């Protein structure tokens, strides 16, 4: 061993000057079996290896390219954005809010075979920074006056109760909606008490668990309320409360994606219309392509589809305008536009350590203000709807803090004296998809756009009605008519015949 080492040193001193790698290589071969641990101090071999390795890599790259360029492969000389939506789909849902994802989920749930319908959900803002879903107060109630709305709420509450049977994904954590079963409490003054009684009987008839309270009972149940001016109160006992909208949205999204729905981040910018000869109307529109533009770029992908669902919430009317529907003369069919516009609503977070405790319901006063508990640390969220002529600017989501001091606080402090000393800790604003016609949802097909379904105009009830409304729209698309709940009354027919379905509000 030692002789070998010596030999190596001598060989190196003799041939090292020549710097010929062949010699060194042969020398390495001779002593490779004996001196594995020795280190070579030359650079020649490494250089040589690098050269050959580079060459090999180049060859590999060329070979890969050639294989790619062969017919039948996906390669193209232009770089392709991997986030582009597919070129064809059966149903394109515009709007990735809770309604859109709910429709996607129900479409997949109702399909008979795996991948029976190819559904794309298009959402322009993956952060949901302006989405009505996540900026809502998250309440669910049965205390409506229209049977359709009560039934939608009951079906949705049933869905939320079994949310894990519906939206649980195998091997994923169970969905926890953080549902607060605190009920809604509506307060009515003398002049509207009879409406509340009527609504109460409608609600009981539809199966909602609601109780009427006299001012005395109200005071007994909620001692912190000032019952001055209250003639009657109606209080939800079951299936009412509030939950976390983001969790529901995400659960719908995850489940739908796990069932094969394709999510596409982008904005719908254009349409391709295919005019058809129709016997019924002179200009019957049919959409065959939807252009989806990628975020922050001019690149877009036309998606060929059979059915378009407009679930864009507050911005659904913008889409309809883009399509050129409803631009005709007024009082004709071609002038029938979607009566939905964005409205801005403020929600204020207030802190009041002496406020109502754990038994604080979602209180809605006849003056229009509402508030509910938020967490356990003495925080509450409150708000109200401004008057029709005082609507705030909807171009941004800035909060008007004066509005709280002028409109919300006085009524709030009048109803609950403890709120006289409160502190506004935070506030946010969100959009309502406000239906200017009758403040109720618009579900179904536009008479002039034969393959466009609407699910919009919920006017603030979208989140709580989303599970049942999604099911209804999916039934309308796949079965051709409503199967579980008859919501024909919420279609375009009422807008055509100018018969609004107004809620008999006590506010």
């Amino acid at each position: 061993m030692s002789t070998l080492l010596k030999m190596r040193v001598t060989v190196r001193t003799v041939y090292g000057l020549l710097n010929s790698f062949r010699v060194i290589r042969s020398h390495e071969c001779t002593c490779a079996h004996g001196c594995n641990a020795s280190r070579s101090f030359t650079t020649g071999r490494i250089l040589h290896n690098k050269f050959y390795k580079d060459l090999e890599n180049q060859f590999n790259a060329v070979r890969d390219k050639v294989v790619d360029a062969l017919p039948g492969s996906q390669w193209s000389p232009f770089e392709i954005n991997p986030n582009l939506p597919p070129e064809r789909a059966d149903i394109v849902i515009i709007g990735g809010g809770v309604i859109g994802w709910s429709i996607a989920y129900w479409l997949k749930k109702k399909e008979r075979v795996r991948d029976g319908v190819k559904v794309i959900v298009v959402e322009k803002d993956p952060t949901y920074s302006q989405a009505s879903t996540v900026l809502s107060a998250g309440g669910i109630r049965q205390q409506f006056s229209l049977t359709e709305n009560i039934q939608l709420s009951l079906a949705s509450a049933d869905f939320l109760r079994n949310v894990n049977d519906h939206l649980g994904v195998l091997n994923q954590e169970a969905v926890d909606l953080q549902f607060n079963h605190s009920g809604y409490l509506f307060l009515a003054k003398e002049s509207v008490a009879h409406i509340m009684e009527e609504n109460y009987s409608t609600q009981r008839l539809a199966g909602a668990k609601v109780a009427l309270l006299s001012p005395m009972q109200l005071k007994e149940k909620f001692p912190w309320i000032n019952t001055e001016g209250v003639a009657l109160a109606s209080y939800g006992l079951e299936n009412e409360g509030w939950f976390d909208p983001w969790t529901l949205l995400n659960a719908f999204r995850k489940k739908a994606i796990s069932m094969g729905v394709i999510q596409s981040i982008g904005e719908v910018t254009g349409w391709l219309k295919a005019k058809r000869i129709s016997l019924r109307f002179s200009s019957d529109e049919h959409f065959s392509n939807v252009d989806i533009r990628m975020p922050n770029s001019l690149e877009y992908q036309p998606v060929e589809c059979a059915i378009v669902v407009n679930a864009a919430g507050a911005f659904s009317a913008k889409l309809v305008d883009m399509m050129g529907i409803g631009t005709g003369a007024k009082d004709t069919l071609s002038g029938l536009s979607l009566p939905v516009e964005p409205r801005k609503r403020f929600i204020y977070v207030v802190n009041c350590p002496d406020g109502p405790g754990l038994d604080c319901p979602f209180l809605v006063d006849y003056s229009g203000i509402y508030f509910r508990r938020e967490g356990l640390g003495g925080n509450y969220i409150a708000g109200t709807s401004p008057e029709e002529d005082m609507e705030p600017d909807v171009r941004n989501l800035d909060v008007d803090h004066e509005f709280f001091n002028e409109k919300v606080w006085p009524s709030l402090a009048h109803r609950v004296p403890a709120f006289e000393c409160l502190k506004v800790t935070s506030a946010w604003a969100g959009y309502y998809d406000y239906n200017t016609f009758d403040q109720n949802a618009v579900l179904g097909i536009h008479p002039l756009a034969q393959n466009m379904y609407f699910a919009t105009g919920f006017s603030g009830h979208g989140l709580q009605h989303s599970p049942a409304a999604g099911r209804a729209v999916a039934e309308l698309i796949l079965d051709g008519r409503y199967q579980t709940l008859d919501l024909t009354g919420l279609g375009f027919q009422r807008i055509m015949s100018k018969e609004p379905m107004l809620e008999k509000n006590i506010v």
Partner: protein
Amino acid sequence: MAAPLMPLQRFCKLASLHLCVRRRLWSSSGATPPSLYKRLLLALTQRFYDVEILLNWRTQLKSKALHKKNAYYHFTQEHYGDNIASAYFVLNMQGAFRYAGQSEWFRSDSSGTFSWDFVNQKDSVLEEVDLSHTVINQIGLGNLVGNPLHTLLLRGCHEVDDWALARLHVFQDTLEELDISCCPHITIGGLAALRNLKGLRRLNVSSLPRLCSPGLVIILLEEMLPLCQVTATGYDLSLTQLGGNVDEEDHGEVKLSLGQG
């Protein structure tokens, strides 16, 4: 012959790797690792649709069986009356009950058999019901409606959740004692629904694993139900649970976490 076995072989190799890696990941994160069986199922479902479908069927069957057990006893109710149907339901659930004005408890033994004497008392109503460690859920509670229940024991029921607590308003005039301890699905959202039970005298909310900041919740419960004696054991109420030592620096943080509670 070997060709069809290749994917399976590859899968086995991958699965073993996957399981080992997973174990290491979980052990570092402090959360309890799922059992080997669960992890094997996870690995299988990620590769084979069939396993996923089988597992989905299993959950569906389970929920169907649960639904069946809690179904409304319409036939019994029609033929024998409300209270007999309720009593029959309780015994079928392997629970126990006591008629009003009697001291004798009817219960079914561990094999689920019981004597049919209770059928003869058509006019009595149920006063105390013990459904501890049964599979009763929100729908099953509907079978007890109509009885002026004074006591309802739901200790350790896996299917009692917030929705079931919200349903308890049907006993709001009579219920005096309620035991919902050790129910794994109850959270603060359901406890808020107990405000309807203004007649409640004794409430046991011990050892609810999903209750966050139990100290604060107990105070709020006592505030909400002033006449009620709230029992809550099995919680670590020392201040250290809120995250380390409470010294001057940490004080603000502790307050904050309480506030967000």
